[in-house]
């Protein structure tokens, strides 16, 4: 049996991991196909502001165009907006789906960037050792001590806020943990006999790194990547929540930020993205934990 098939069988045994995976797959489908079935997430309609989900109602003062003044009306939920609307009458479902896109994009891309940088630095550091190791690891230490949020705020302040910039910023600052893990794994591998044996058979440095070292630490990298995705998602949400997110896109953090003022009345505006964040983070953590256990040697 191929090793990948073997590990898949083992991962399947962890029900929480499979539940996590199912949620992630559901989220990906939602993010990919959802926008074709929902109204535009940026469509504003003040006549439908703070519309609760069906079955709920909200008493609020609304502008009446015919009388030209504010009147207190009772807003009932409607199936036209199954998850309600926010304070500007935007459809919550559409916004949540748009937010799923943003979160997945940030989570996957930023983690991808961080993992690639971290793995390259970690492997180079451990494989070549000596001065290279010292320099790269001290650089990693410095990066680690740097206050990440402050750096993000600085970047947003200097270059303005865009999703690309946020992804890059999270990715370019989040590699330190990976670098350390990969370094320590490589250190224990590089003196193993099969590495020396493949050198004795004439393998080049690149071949050893990509053909022997990388596949052998891939399991750790996969686990670490899965477990760092929630971090990236939360970082973006946090940034958006404090108002430094990309104002052009509806992300869960943005929605949270917009809804916090009306938490007491229009609770769904904050609860819904909050739940999405919660379940997404939980799903990735469950999956990562399951993978970690599946990759652990023994246990058969």
């Amino acid at each position, binding site marked *: 049996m191929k090793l990948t098939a073997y590990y898949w069988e083992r991962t399947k045994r962890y029900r929480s991991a499979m539940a996590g995976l199912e949620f992630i797959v559901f989220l990906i489908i939602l993010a990919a196909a959802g926008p074709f079935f929902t109204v535009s997430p940026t469509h504003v309609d003040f006549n439908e502001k703070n519309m609760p989900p069906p079955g709920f109602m909200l008493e609020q003062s609304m502008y009446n165009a015919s009388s030209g003044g504010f009147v207190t009306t009772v807003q009932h939920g409607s199936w036209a907006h199954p998850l309600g609307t926010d304070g500007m009458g935007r459809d919550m479902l559409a916004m949540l789906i748009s937010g799923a896109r943003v979160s997945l994009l940030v989570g996957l891309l930023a983690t991808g960037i961080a993992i690639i940088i971290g793995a390259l630095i970690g492997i180079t550091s451990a494989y070549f050792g000596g001065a290279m190791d010292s320099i790269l690891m001290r650089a990693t230490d410095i990066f680690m001590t740097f206050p990440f949020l402050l750096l993000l705020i600085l970047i947003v302040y200097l270059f303005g806020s865009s999703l690309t910039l946020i992804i890059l910023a999270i990715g370019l600052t989040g590699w330190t943990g990976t670098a350390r893990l990969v370094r320590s794994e490589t250190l224990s591998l590089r003196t193993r*006999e099969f590495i020396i*044996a*493949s050198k004795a*058979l*004439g393998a080049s440095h690149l*071949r050893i790194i990509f053909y022997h070292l990388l*596949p052998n630490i891939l399991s750790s990298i996969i686990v670490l990547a899965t477990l760092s995705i929630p971090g990236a998602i939360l970082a973006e949400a946090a940034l958006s929540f404090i108002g430094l997110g990309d104002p052009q896109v509806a992300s869960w953090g943005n929605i949270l930020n917009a809804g916090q003022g009306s938490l007491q009345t229009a609770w769904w505006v904050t609860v819904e993205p909050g739940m999405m964040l919660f379940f997404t983070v939980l799903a990735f953590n469950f999956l990562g934990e399951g993978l970690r256990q599946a990759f652990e040697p023994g246990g058969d």
Partner: protein
Amino acid sequence: MDSENELGTVLSVTGLCTYFFTKKGIVKAVDNVSFDVRKGEIMCIVGESGSGKTVTALSLLRLVEHPGRIVEGKIMFDGKNLLDLTLREMRDIRGKKIAMIFQDPHSSLDPVFTIGEQIAEAMTAHKGITKGEAKARVYELLKLVDIPEPERRFHEYPHQFSGGMKQRVMIAMALSCKPLILIADEPTSSLDVTIQALILDMFIELRKKFNMAIIYITHDLWVIRYISDRVAVMYLGIIVESADKKEIFENPLHPYTQALLSSLPGKKGRILLKGEVPSPVNPPEGCRFHSRCPKRFDRCEKIEPEMKEVVSGHFVMCHLYS
């Protein structure tokens, strides 16, 4: 040692020094070692742990790792000094011309790839051959090293193989490019005795088939008697005696060799050596063996003996014979 231009010498090592520059001092793991390897012969390097056998072998392929360094010497192979080659040129020698097998078959194979993939990799690293060709060649190699059902075994992982089978795979990998010299670093010491004998027979057979020289490193006198043509005895980083197998076993000259051979079962008059091997950081002055030598005299403590050809082809480094 052997006359320089003797016919059929494939590898000639002269004055090889490999030192390890540690914080405790310079460890002279291999110090001024010289030997020749002739075409198609099995040459054994014997010595106890820490005598520098493995470092000698690694030095031949320039695989000594930091803090170790080859300080001096010449390794002549194919008309070139291996120590002068660039790393790229050296890579072309490794595996293709000189291959090496390691001690522990359990850790010599990459756990995440199938046996077939790994043997094929050894070939594609050097030759530009297609996957299909490589696969056919892998089957051939697996058959050559007596692995049954190669078509099935090709797709299996190292953990599904026994120690002896893994060592066969290592041999198949080493043979994949038909090297001129095979360095085997205690390839059978972690296997049980019956498997050991099978593997040794395989070495003897393959040596004939490929006409390759084998440098066989071991501490096992029984193995030496079984497969070697020539023997070099190492003690504390130097070769103290070398001769044909028959000569070594019948007429050992160096007191260390004598003590070593007296440990074979069935021999009378076992010579027990006192103390332990001295630290290679500060090897004893004079003859390195003098602190434990039962036959030492004044000169041994001060002057390092030189290598002398006592009988034709029998070299020994001892004041008793100068």
